[in-house]
């Protein structure tokens, strides 16, 4: 009866199984310790990563602010330059000019609100550039 003999408990097997169990428990304990250490390290790493990303975000937003600031100023200066040219430069004809002088003044006042932060405009906007200085 090969089968029943194989099923029979061999005392040596018992002792080997006990060793294996002990070994497994030890391994599990070590693994648990390792996991805890890993966990702590992971928490530190995560905190560091969060801190780094917060710093990066702050720096990026500061960079964006100053780039946006420059872009805004350039946009305003462009608008200022355009207003100056279209309303005080160009070929002037007699005829039904759409804009009366009073309209132009009102327009300056209105547009000045748009470019309020180039706080300037006071006298600079009104009137054409000085006479040409030819070489």
């Amino acid at each position, binding site marked *: 009866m090969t089968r029943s003999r194989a099923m029979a408990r061999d005392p040596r097997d018992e002792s080997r199984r006990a060793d294996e169990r002990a070994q497994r428990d030890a391994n599990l304990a070590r693994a648990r310790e390792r996991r805890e250490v890993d966990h702590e390290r992971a928490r530190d790493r995560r905190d560091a990563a969060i801190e780094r990303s917060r710093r990066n975000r702050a720096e990026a937003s500061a960079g964006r602010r100053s780039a946006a600031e420059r872009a805004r*100023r*350039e946009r305003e*200066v*462009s*608008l*200022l*330059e*355009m*207003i*100056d*040219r*279209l*309303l*005080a*430069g*160009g*070929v*002037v*004809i*007699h*005829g*039904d*000019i*759409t*804009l009366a002088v009073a*309209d*132009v003044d009102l*327009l300056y006042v*209105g*547009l000045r609100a*748009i470019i309020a932060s*180039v*706080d*300037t405009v*006071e*006298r*600079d906007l009104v009137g*054409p*550039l*000085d*006479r*040409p*200085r*030819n*070489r």
Partner: protein
Amino acid sequence: MVYVYAITEPDAEAPDATGFEGAPLRMVRAGAVAAIASDLDGRVEPGESTLWEHEQVVEELMSAGALLPMRFGSTLADEVALEAMLADREEELARGLARVRGAVELGVRALREPEDEPGAEIPAPADAEAGAAAGTEAEAGAGTTYLLRRLGRSRRSEELADEVHAPLELLARESRRRVVTVPRIVLTGAYLIDERRVEEFRAMAEELDERIAEAAILCTGPWPPYSFAPGEPVS
């Protein structure tokens, strides 16, 4: 009514684009000059968007040849009136076209920090007279001190304006400038620049911006030559 955007040369192509109210652009020729115009039923309300619209039409025409932009809001009763105007001023406008042919306008603004902000310290006046005046500042009242500061700042602004303008003017066919010492704009300049020198001019403006720490120097354009177009007709 017709709205007129620009004066150009009679052999320029009529651009395939629209103007105000979506009306197609067309050329009206008279002798040595032509105008780019479009029909207008209503009125062009002046504002930021209509200014840009006018500007955009004119900028699209810049590649077609020499061009004199019209002042914003220039309208005439009809095409006949426009032809009559062109014929009447043909010589003057043709001269104007020759003056700007092959060139564009660049704008330069030099801005200083406002007086009360850090970095806007007023340097001691350079000349002896102002130096002596500054020496008595201790005994002077607050009002006098203020006026001396204002004077020092305004003198420095004039110096800065010259510092910026001189090297730029050398690159220009013609230039126009306005020196404003109150409150932040030091210089407003317009420069008529040969097309082939535009990059050189821009590089110079950038170099000045880096070299002159007291002022920010901003260069805009190329613009149509608004500042170099014939102004009010002699009547």
